[in-house]
């Protein structure tokens, strides 16, 4: 990773495998060989379709899913597997999550003040009542809500505002990493933009690092610094955002790109979706691994395919 060697790694996945018991029969491997680093202060996107394992990876980082192989390091320390109570608390505080559906992830019978304070209560992260209220007010302000919203209930808010509350309750823990699992998929177009802008603002102001889990490449292009594309539990391509969009190499990435609907009738009516099926494309084999095709741009392939991808990248460059 030539251009990025001097950046600090915040989170590191090494050969992560996650499998689920399939009623005593053969285990189902939801994720295999996932290896990537997330650098401090970047937005790293994990993009894939339903069933690809993207949420499973997010949940493994939150330590909800156990690994069946490999390890996860946070600031160089292993956080997968057994941790002491002290370490456990620290990790929970440092890694927070934003969920997809703000209506479902907030307790509808609790006030906004309680929703946001919940983490503080659980970990006793406040000196006194006064301090807690100051922290809640500050979190509300950071996400663009008002102190008087404290006494309201989730149903009194619009979708966008509710998602801001979801962000505020993650922020109040002063996390270093925020795992955002499809944070805008349940929102209307006009509200999506607000939430994306807010996430960017917090990243710039507080140096937050995001793992942004999504299925929508057009959103990811706007928000992510680097992107990993995941298909059927395998990461197939990792690159910086501009690089990935200019030189998509893995056939699955290309198929995903071809399916993004563009808001332009003349162009859209000419576009043909490119169908990718793993039966026609050889997907994996013993000599498959993540290979660096261009600087910082990795594709899961064998040596022959690596040569082809290199040629393909060259031809795009010339064109």
């Amino acid at each position, binding site marked *: 990773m030539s251009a990025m060697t001097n950046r600090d790694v915040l989170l590191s996945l090494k050969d992560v495998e996650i499998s689920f018991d399939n009623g005593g029969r053969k285990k189902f491997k939801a994720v295999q060989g996932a290896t990537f680093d997330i650098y401090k202060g970047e937005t790293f996107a994990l993009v894939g379709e339903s069933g690809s394992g993207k949420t499973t990876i997010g949940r493994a980082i939150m330590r909800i899913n156990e690994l069946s192989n490999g390890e996860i390091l946070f600031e160089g320390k292993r956080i997968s597997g057994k941790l002491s109570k002290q370490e456990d608390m620290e990790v929970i505080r440092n890694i927070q999550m934003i969920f997809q559906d703000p209506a479902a992830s907030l307790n509808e019978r609790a006030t906004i003040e309680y929703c946001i304070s919940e983490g503080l209560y659980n970990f006793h992260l406040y000196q006194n009542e006064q301090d807690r209220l100051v922290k809640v007010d500050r979190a509300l302000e950071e996400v663009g809500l008002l102190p008087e919203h404290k006494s309201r209930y989730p149903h009194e808010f619009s979708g966008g505002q509710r998602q801001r509350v979801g962000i505020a309750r993650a922020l109040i823990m002063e996390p270093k990493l925020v795992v955002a699992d499809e944070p805008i998929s349940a929102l*209307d177009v006009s509200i999506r933009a607000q939430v*994306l802008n807010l996430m960017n603002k917090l990243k710039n102001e507080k140096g937050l690092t995001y793992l942004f889990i999504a299925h929508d490449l057009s959103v990811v292009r706007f928000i992510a610094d680097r992107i990993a594309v995941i298909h059927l539990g395998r990461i197939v391509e990792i690159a910086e955002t*501009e690089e990935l969009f200019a030189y998509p190499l893995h056939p699955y990435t290309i198929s995903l790109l071809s*399916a993004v609907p563009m*808001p332009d009738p003349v162009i859209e009516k000419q576009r043909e979706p490119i169908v990718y099926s793993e039966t026609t494309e050889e997907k994996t084999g013993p000599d498959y691994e993540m290979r660096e095709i261009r600087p910082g741009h990795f594709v899961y392939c064998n040596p022959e395919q690596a040569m082809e991808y290199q040629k393909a990248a060259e031809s795009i460059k010339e064109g």
Partner: protein
Amino acid sequence: MKDKIIISAKDIEVQFRVRDRFLTAIRNVSLDLYEGETFAIVGESGSGKSVFTKTFTGMLESNGKITNGSIMYHGQDLTKLKKEKDWAGIRGVKIATVFQDPMTSLNPIRTIGFQITEVIEKHQKLSKSEAKAQAISIMERVGIPNAADRFDNYPFQYSGGMRQRIVIAIALACHPEILICDEPTTALDVTIQAQIIKLIKDLQKELGFTTIYITHDLGVVANVADRVGVMYGGQIIEYGTVNEIFYDPQHPYTWALLSALPQLGVKGEDLYYITGTPPSLYNKIEGDAFAPRNPQALKIDFAKEPPFFKVSDTHYAKTWLLDPRAPKVEKPAAIQNLHEKILKMTAKGGAFHVGND
């Protein structure tokens, strides 16, 4: 294509009784649909797009009522149909609907084959074996591999995309004249969405039905639509051909919807967004419903509801900006030269180029 009107809704108003209050979900909407076209209705949640089209099949929830207007279809006013029996020859037969979530529109404890043949037998009076043969041929037509083998499968044994293909098969089993697609791909993955959209378009070409396509996704609209209606606060506020709506939009709400698309976002800059929330439909709306959220709203926008102004023979918009006395307001920079911008993104080496040449 633009000659024969197949269904004509005029001044439709729909009210819902919620506890003791009345909510006006649709406020005087008129729409003529032409035979064989695809008309897309686009809008945010709560704008009334589903409610409006539900009046075409008499499927309003029990607390909802059409309080004004008419829907003329083959010389018959559909708003006058009261009993379930009256709808028998229309709903599902002449006008069919494909809903968003294929898991909830299929019966989980009946086989796929049963659910298709049920419709065929009911409406076409065929024998069991004839119905089965026809069902299998429809399954093949909507792209189910090994249709005969999968005839006796249950919905859970199908993937989401396959289930939506079955819902489409059932909707088309009676050769309807009008197919209402209500967010048919919203619950599906993008690659599957692309396949389903293509399937609907191919079937339309082959069978010649008229499509109403409801969606919140302007990218999908660009792909499927011949004409587009933009809905806001229970009204169609602008309609025109798909090219007119994307390249020459006139209503500030249409501008805002287009500008907020992440596809048009520039990295490092804020995305355009709409402040505030949609109007409450419990209260009477004065003036232009979008005015409170429109930073450039005129004084008259708050006082008087704008009429439709004509932009071209096919393009109308309900905004005072089109009044000759209005000040000149440019559409936002994000959507100026839209075509050139997207052309660049999809060109070789551009962000959305797919490398298939």
